[in-house]
């Protein structure tokens, strides 16, 4: 008996239970749907028009009540089952292994679960390890049996109670729609929860960093030497980030906006049909190619230009740094990269301004440019601001171009021909290569990411408010 029970546990420990359950639940769903529908027809004595809801809805309701609770139990098991099993196993291991510390204990159990997953696993010769492996398989099987039984019980109960509810006056349709609404809400919730999860993980890693380096010296420090683990003052990085984003917007905002105005207000439909896709093609170029372009082509030109300025009479020698990689080169190329973001979105927004507004302006004798400047653009402004903000956040978060063309030196200088470094460049530098994940050096990357997130969040909030206030005024 005991042996048989053990076999069963072991078998369950190995079975692909998830797929089986999936199939069982699907079948249960179908069966309960038809059961509910048939019962509804019976309740209505064959006259479905007497029912509050159509028989199909009764069917959906029963199916939902059957599958829903079971699915919830299974999802919970999928999320937490494994960690419960591992915790149980850990508590049963001998004291000397439990004393190893959480990291190595975890690795030990990882090895056990790998071993257990092998069906043809031969004995390793280590008695403790083998015993633990078979115990793990049993525990897994037991947990699965419990989960499956719970799910089946939930399905049965749901089925039973749902069928008892059916009557002529039962509002099955509205209940089903409530259920669907709840499902949609869950999906939206998952997106939000994921965001919260990402922020939380960033936050906790950042907190680990801030337990070693003070927040104050991180945010207000002006020296950054993370590679040596000496100085963690982030100001030079923020300076570089915003400097390059600013240079990029200096390129992208006017060119993008004016080309959008030209395309939507002045260009012939044929010209627009050709040029707009070409502009949008810019957005499809991989950023690494832009980085290439910046490094190979733009940076030397910037350097030559800076040297030329330095050589002018009355210009103090060495006024401009004229570095081989420079903020200006990265900024220009990044600006080119985000032109389509500005132009394409602005173009859509400007096109969405109703023709009647333009007609109204023309009809009182406004010229084309007066109409564009004073009627069309104000009407399109919230959308244009949104387009510009999207471009700014692209510029701040952009990585590849700055990695290749902006340089690595953390410094604060107004000279755009000097090499600057950005937050994203430093995160890449800190987290690539051979790293361990609990030194101040690598943790500082998370702190940078977290602060960057906060900054862009504040940015977006302010922008949102601006747009809203403008909306109130203009729409």
């Amino acid at each position: 008996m005991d042996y048989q029970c053990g076999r069963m546990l072991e078998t369950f420990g190995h079975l692909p239970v998830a797929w089986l359950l999936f199939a069982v639940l699907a079948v249960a769903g179908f069966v309960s749907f038809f059961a509910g529908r048939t019962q509804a027809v019976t309740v209505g004595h064959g006259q479905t028009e007497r029912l509050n809801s159509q028989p199909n809805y009764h069917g959906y309701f029963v199916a939902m009540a059957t599958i829903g609770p079971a699915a919830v139990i299974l999802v919970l098991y999928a999320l937490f089952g494994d960690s419960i099993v591992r915790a149980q196993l850990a508590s049963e291991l001998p004291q000397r292994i439990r004393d190893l510390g959480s990291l190595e204990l975890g690795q030990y159990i990882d090895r056990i679960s790998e071993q257990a997953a092998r069906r043809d696993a031969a004995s390793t010769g280590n008695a403790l390890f083998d015993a633990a492996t078979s115990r793990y398989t049993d525990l897994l099987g037991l947990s699965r049996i419990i989960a499956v039984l719970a799910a089946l019980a939930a399905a049965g109960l749901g089925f039973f109670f749902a069928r008892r509810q059916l009557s002529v006056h039962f509002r099955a349709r509205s209940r089903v729609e409530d259920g669907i609404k709840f499902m949609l809400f869950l999906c939206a919730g998952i997106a939000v929860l994921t965001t919260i999860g990402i922020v939380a993980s960033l936050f906790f890693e950042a907190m680990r960093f801030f337990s070693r380096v003070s927040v104050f010296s991180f945010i207000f420090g002006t020296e950054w030497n993370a590679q040596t683990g000496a100085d963690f003052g982030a100001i030079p990085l923020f300076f570089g980030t915003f400097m390059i984003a600013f240079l990029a917007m200096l390129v992208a905002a006017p060119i993008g906006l004016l080309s959008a105005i030209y395309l939507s207000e002045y260009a012939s439909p044929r010209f627009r049909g050709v040029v707009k896709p070409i502009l949008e093609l810019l957005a499809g170029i991989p950023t690494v190619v832009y980085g290439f372009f910046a490094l190979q082509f733009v940076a030397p030109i910037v350097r030559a230009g800076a040297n030329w300025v330095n050589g002018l009479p009355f210009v103090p020698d060495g006024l401009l740094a004229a570095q081989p990689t420079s903020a200006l080169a990265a900024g220009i190329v990044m600006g080119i990269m985000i032109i389509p973001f500005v132009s394409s979105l602005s173009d859509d927004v400007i096109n969405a301004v109703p023709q009647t507004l333009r007609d109204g302006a023309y009809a009182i004798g406004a010229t084309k440019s007066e109409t564009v400047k004073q009627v069309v653009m104000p009407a399109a402004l919230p959308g244009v601001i949104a387009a510009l903000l999207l471009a700014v956040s692209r510029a701040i978060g952009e990585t590849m171009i700055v990695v290749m063309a902006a340089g690595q030196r953390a410094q604060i200088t107004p000279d755009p021909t000097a090499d600057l470094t950005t937050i994203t460049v430093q995160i890449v530098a800190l987290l690539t290569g051979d790293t361990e994940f609990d030194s101040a050096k690598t943790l500082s990357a998370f702190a940078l990411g977290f602060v960057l997130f906060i900054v862009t969040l504040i940015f977006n909030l302010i922008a949102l408010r601006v747009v809203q206030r403008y909306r109130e005024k203009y729409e």
Partner: protein
Amino acid sequence: MDGNVEDFTETRPKQAHTMSEMIKVDCRNIDVFYGDKQAIYDISLAIQDRAVTSFIGPSGCGKSTFLRCINRMNDTIETAKVSGQIYMDGADINDHSIDPVLLRSRVGMVFQKPNPFPKSIYDNIAYGPRIHGLASGKQELDEVVESALRKAGLWDEVKDRLQAPGTSLSGGQQQRLCIARAIAVSPEVILMDEPCSALDPIATARIEELIDELRERYCIVIVTHSMQQAARVSQRTAFFHLGKLIEYGDTEQIFTNPVDSKTQDYITGRYG
């Protein structure tokens, strides 16, 4: 008025002669094409000053298109081509020496759907005078705005909230705002393209009253789908059908004693 409209094209020169000082806009042999499609076929029509002329006819008959010829709004549509002459106070508006932008400040237009600019009530009215330099200084501009709003019968309703957005007004108020906007640049002619089609009966009655008052000062042309409206507000009525002018004459005569059987059919509701 000349009651004989049986053969309009032959009587028209005579009309023009007898009331030459009363004719504001004289259109001769107007054809309009949208691409290859002809929308207006050889229409000649003289519009009286200080009177309301209504254009009626079934949808797609070209009355709006014809209206838009008078302030050259069709210029803004790329595929549209207009031929023929339109004389305003004796000058051809399609002549090269005439800037359509200036022409439109003399010929105001009100559209089917109220289209206030995304600006305050004040700026909606002040926009035209500003771009045409009609007022020097803030005080003069205030006066222009007030007088336009008074003429449009909107002043009392909005005088306390001139800085509120134009779009915050009700539909009827918005349409009167658009009329005030047109008036503010002191036009001579006001074109109205179904100005009441988006309004309820009370707002419509208000606009019609206003049109009747404005008749004292302006030459008004109104396109309408409502025969009752045409009968109520206009002195002259033109009936269009399939891009052709079928009949044109005194409103009373058109509605009580139409000459053409198509006009008869339309005003009695047999089609349209």
